[in-house]
């Protein structure tokens, strides 16, 4: 990597993290106004946050909505990825296009259309609608993530297991699934994270459920407040913890796999009888 590439990456990182760093700095700034110059270090916005019951319930709501979204997104993504990477799938292009629909159609159009149907057939909007709609939007991401790993799994392992007498289910559970652990964890966390970050779908489908993003949006339309900074930083920190944990898990899982890969490439001829 030359100096030009290193400089590019440094600049890109600065651009991507500039707003986040500014947010974090102001969450520790001892002033009501979010303006320079800084006035001094203070934890009072975090103290105020800790005492704010509305934020607590919003946070719990967001958290409870995000878990099923992660789970449904992961399972649907696994199913879609298993089908997509199977060489026998018919209408592959149509199926792939269908999976991309929730990604390509603007979320707001999709949510408004869903809200229209629900109110037309007198279904109440709320947590269930929100969870289902968010899960739909997560499917393209989880499918891509799991497919990327699944496509590299050696199909001969399944064949070997089957030749040795495993039932299809046993082969799936004992041979394929262990290789997908880290991809599934990644898919789960991406679902949770996208759900936590979502505002658009919540605006149309949350009903009386009040996730954190919605609460922030309604407070924020009026004025900027430093305790919101503190809350954003808290949410970001929690998200970073989720990302770091799933990345650590992935690396932990990937290490033996990489060694096995290296061993396999080192002796290709001996490995094939």
């Amino acid at each position, binding site marked *: *990597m*030359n100096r*030009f*590439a*290193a400089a*590019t*990456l440094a600049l*890109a990182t600065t651009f*991507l993290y*500039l707003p*986040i760093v*500014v*947010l974090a700095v102001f969450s520790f700034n001892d002033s009501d*106004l979010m*303006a*320079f110059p800084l006035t001094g270090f203070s934890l009072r916005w975090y103290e105020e946050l800790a005492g704010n019951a509305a934020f607590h319930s919003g946070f719990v709501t967001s958290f409870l909505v995000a878990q099923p979204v992660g789970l449904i997104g992961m399972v*649907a993504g696994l*199913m*879609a990825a298993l*089908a*997509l990477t*199977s060489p026998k*799938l018919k209408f592959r292009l149509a*199926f792939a296009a*269908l*999976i991309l*629909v*929730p*990604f*390509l*159609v*603007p979320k*707001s*159009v*999709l949510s*408004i*259309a*869903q*809200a*229209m*149907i629900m109110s037309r057939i007198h279904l109440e909007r709320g947590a269930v609608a929100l969870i*289902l709609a968010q899960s*739909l939007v997560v*499917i393209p991401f989880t499918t891509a993530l799991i497919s990327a790993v699944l496509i590299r799994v050696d199909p001969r392992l399944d064949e070997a297991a*089957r030749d040795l*007498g495993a039932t*299809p289910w046993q082969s799936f559970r004992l041979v394929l699934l262990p290789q997908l652990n880290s991809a599934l964890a990644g898919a789960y966390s991406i679902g949770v994270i996208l759900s*936590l*970050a*979502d*505002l658009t779908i919540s605006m149309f489908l949350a009903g009386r459920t009040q996730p954190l993003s919605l609460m*922030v949006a309604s407070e*924020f339309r009026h004025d*900027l407040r430093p305790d*919101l900074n503190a809350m*954003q930083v808290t949410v*970001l920190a929690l998200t*970073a913890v989720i*990302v770091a944990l799933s*990345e650590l898990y992935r690396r932990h899982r990937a290490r033996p796999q990489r060694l096995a890969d290296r061993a396999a490439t080192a002796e290709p001829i001996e490995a094939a009888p």
Partner: protein
Amino acid sequence: MIGRPLFSGFALGRTHLAIPVALVLVLGCIVPLGVLVVFSVFEVDFDAFVLMPALSPRAWSDLFHTWSFWVLIGKAVISGAAAALTTSILGYPIALALASAPLNWKGIGTVVLLTPLYTGEIVRIYAWRIVLGSEGLINTLLLDLHIVASPVKWLLFTPFTTALVLTYNNLPYMVLAIWVSAEMVDKRLIEAARDLGARPLDAFFKVTLPLTTPGLAAGVFAVFALAAGEMLTPSLLGGTSGQTAMAMIDNLFGTAFDWPLASALALALLAALFLTAVALGFCLTRFKGARAVIGRGRA
């Protein structure tokens, strides 16, 4: 291969897993979009606030006769295309730098690139207001360095803000798409071009760009779709210029209770986006050499 079971149940079962997923997607996405078509020809009783089944061309005729709707649709297309352009210009050097980085940097690169995506839409909007405001980071720096005498006003609540934040929001998607393509380019091809006397820019335009066109195309489609459909960033950061087709649809749906017109406008927007995406795809395949790459990818 002795004792291989006659029926290859698992491979068969695997493809069948597509059915429930497809059903869910059809029910959750295609049906609602289809219902938009139905609602667009319904009538509304504005006294009783009820939607009545009908076969009325009213909404479509309103749509075609109100030029401000078409301005909004045009704006969506332009802001999507602009974001696709700016992210690809900024994204190429970043993606190529990542592709040339040592292996253990790439994992860090992925995390660094993806983490900003995990921040909520509202967090980003909020943060940019602090950066760009008249007492924000940029203006304070400019004032302290005596580059300007009074705060620069056009940083916030102007079309510039919208363009900047749309670029920021979508840059990671573009970088990822190009990066994946760039990883697959044989580095020796670029070295060969340089050895044969091509300047770095020539090597880029004649070798790297055509070979990474599939990634660029994927990035352009994704960014175009995401940026054109964005509602919150323009409305919260674009100031008076922040009116969008999406916000208008939201307004017609929520406040005005004109569901037929909201549906017609949403469909017109989708159609415009789809046609532009097709046109963009067509242009990208015209790149010199790109057709060969895309064609080979399909074979």
